[in-house]
């Protein structure tokens, strides 16, 4: 199965359109993609989905991206996480340094795809 070889990415974003866009785009790039609408769901899906990489929106209702990142690190220290933000609002927050990359959202996903590719090719 092609799928067994495919890397799994968990896209976490509270906006459904973004989730769907990321999913479509990344699946087209050859990844297996699952989505979570909030931090809690993301944490739940860590075990069920076993992603190789997580894209995490920072600004989310309830548990935000930074908090979610912290919790992810508690269970999976080495899981690559890319923080995504409409703007670099948390850039100076030292906790965001715990992420592996920080990408500013644009409609052009080239930068995000590049970051994913870089992080996944390291293994």
């Amino acid at each position: 199965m092609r799928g067994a070889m495919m890397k799994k990415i968990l896209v976490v974003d509270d906006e459904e359109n973004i989730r769907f866009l990321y999913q479509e785009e990344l699946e087209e790039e050859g990844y297996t993609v699952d989505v979570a609408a909030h931090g809690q769901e993301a944490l739940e899906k860590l075990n069920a989905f076993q992603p190789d990489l997580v894209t995490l929106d920072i600004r989310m209702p309830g548990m935000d991206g930074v908090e979610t990142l912290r919790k992810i690190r508690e269970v999976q220290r080495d899981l690559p996480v890319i923080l995504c933000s409409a703007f670099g609002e948390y850039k100076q927050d030292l906790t965001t340094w715990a992420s592996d990359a920080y990408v500013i959202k644009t409609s052009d996903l080239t930068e995000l795809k590049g970051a994913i590719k870089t992080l996944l090719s390291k293994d």
Partner: protein
Amino acid sequence: MSSFTQRECKILGKIIRVSNSTLEIDDRLTRIVEIIAEAFSTHFCGLYTLHKDKNPFILTASSHHNGIEADSSVISRWEGLMGKVAQSRQPSFFGEDDGTGGNVKGMMSKETAAFSLALIPIADDSFSYGVLLLYYAQSRRFGDDEREFLLTVGREISGTFRNAQLFSEAKRRISELTSLYDSSRIVTSTTEWKDLLELVVRTGTRVLGANGGTLRLKDGKTQKLRIESQLGTYPQSLVSLDDEIAKGVLSTGQPTLIGDVNQKREGEPLLSLLCTPLLSRGRAFGTLTVYGKKGGKLPQNNAFGREDERLLSIMADQMANAIENASARLNATRIAEEKDLQANQLSLLYEINNALLSTMKFEQILHIILTAITLGDGMGFNRAMLFLTDERKNRLTGMMGVGPDNAQQAGNIWKNFEGKRDKLSEILSSLCDRYSPTGTLLDERVRRVNIPLDRGECILARTVREQKPFNIDYGRDRVTCQKDCELNKEINCVLRTNSEGDIKSYRFAAVPLWGRESTIGVIVVDNFYNGRPITDDDIQLLTMFTRQAGLAIENCILYKYLEDAHVELKKAQETLLEREKLAALGEMAASVAHEIKNPLVSIGGYTRRLHRKLDNGLYEKRYTDAIIKEVDRLEGILNDILHFSNTSNVVFEKFDVNRIIEETLTGIEDELRSQGIEVEKSLDGNLPQIPCDYQEIKQVFINLLTNAKDVMGGGGRLTVKTFPFSQEDRDYIGIEIRDTGGGIPSEVLHNIFNPFFTTKGWGTGLGLAICHRIVDGHLGAIEVNNDPGRGVTFTVKLPVEGRGQWLTSSKASNRTPSLAKRQRE
């Protein structure tokens, strides 16, 4: 006692009638002598009066008969005889039965062998007046009755003398009283000081019957006598002696009487002098001298006597009072006048001050000051000029000149304000409203004047340096001016052409303008048109005024500074407000942008997907293409706004700037190529990495390169150059971005870094403002070198040891490398 005969009674009656007549004493005596001569048929009858001084006997009256005349020169030869008679008051008879006739031989000019003589004393109980002499050129016998009768006649004549003396005494008393009355009139008169002094001398000389008189008073300052008034002809030979006598009288306080000043000089006429002190409370403050008494018929009467001395002293006492009172009154008047003047000056200054307080405008203050100096009701100078010092340049600069350009104009202005009884302050204000000095010849010339303060001889420079007024008369004072002196050139030029060639009489005054601490300038005044001399009083008043004026000017300047500072502060405040507003706007924009961002990402993202799925060449691809481009633009704007409103999201890390530039150029290379822009890169391979925020520095290059691309719509050359350099011991890297887009219009050049300023007609106008802010945040600088018509070069300078130094060095060692770092690895 024998009774007189009828004839004797008749003679006596005649004598008594004559004696009691109103004739002059000399005439009466002559008549009496004639009566006696006739009655006694004498050959000679003479009346000799006793005189106190050198000639004891004077022939006062005589009668001649039969050709016998008395020779007055030989009177001295019978002095002994007559003196005896006068002293003893006993008559002497020399007749035929007396046997003494020969003893008096030679008495008459025509000597006769036989003669008779009767010497009758003219005396009363207390006084001997003289001797009556009856002479017969023959032997004659004097009977007892005759002797008795002659004695009676003698007594009657003595009565005549006494009466005459009493009369003259009475007359003298009257004249004394008259003189006292005259002097008392002087005392109470309110005549002028000079007139009074003259009146004193005139009264003194008149009462004393003198030819002339001199009044001297002690000068209050020098304590020396000074001649105050002089009347009559003054003998030149007297001058020095007269002064000496007056000095002596002043110091002793006692009168001096000299019977004949010329006593020791042969041939000189008798000149008598009398000097009396003018006393006030026992101390002499002056002297009154009279000289040259107008005598009677005899020269002996031309000398002043003790009587005169007494009379003059009495008068002097009275007149001394009068002079003292007048002097006091004069002083009082003077003081009152001074006070009056001072009051006038004060009210003048007050009025001018009021006018000065009415405005804070610099030009108007100067105008009021100079008008006040030139206005007739003010200080009344013809022209006034004002110069202020420029401390920075150490020069004196002409500020304003007020004064008519010619005499006719002067007359017109003055006429307009003559007789107006408005308050001076109102006149000043209205005058200053109606007449502006600007444009007058004088004003123009004054404004051209600019004199170095260290110029030695210049009166104006000296006025400032020495801080004292100068009152200059070109005719009197030696004024040396520099040849090239602007003042000389400007002001004197006017003089030469206008003053009808008489430069020598030109007078002007320069008075310093005092500020609180030092001289701030000079006011120059002159009386160019009416030539009135400038007095010390003028200078004093002007000085008082310039102190006030100086303060007013200084206040005005300070006020102006204050106002300027206020305006600047207000501007700064407005800018701050504007910035706050912008900040608030920015925050709002940021939150709006943030909300818009996600939908835009969706729109753009899906459109890109759609775009890719559409077959190439499909018509609909143009729609998606448009959507993508518009979304890109919107995202760009959003990024700008978010950047501008948010500066806190900066993270410094060491980056290779060359690389950031390469990435940025790659991002726009398609567009550059399609616009026909040639790119020339000159990136220094040894450029050190610098601490910076990758996103921010990239944003700077995006903005600068995009701008360059936009201004070269019709193609051109884009030059990008990097280089390291040092400045003030610090290492920097420089990034130069040059376009050939024609440059920036110079009138908007100063605006280009202002937010929301744009010449492009699109975009937010935040591009360069963001660049500026970012570079500032990196402690760098961004410079623009505009070459109008050709292009612009932007140079970004960033420090190698920048702000982020501590951040990069203190980074935790276990920190996960960022994406960008990994990208480089």
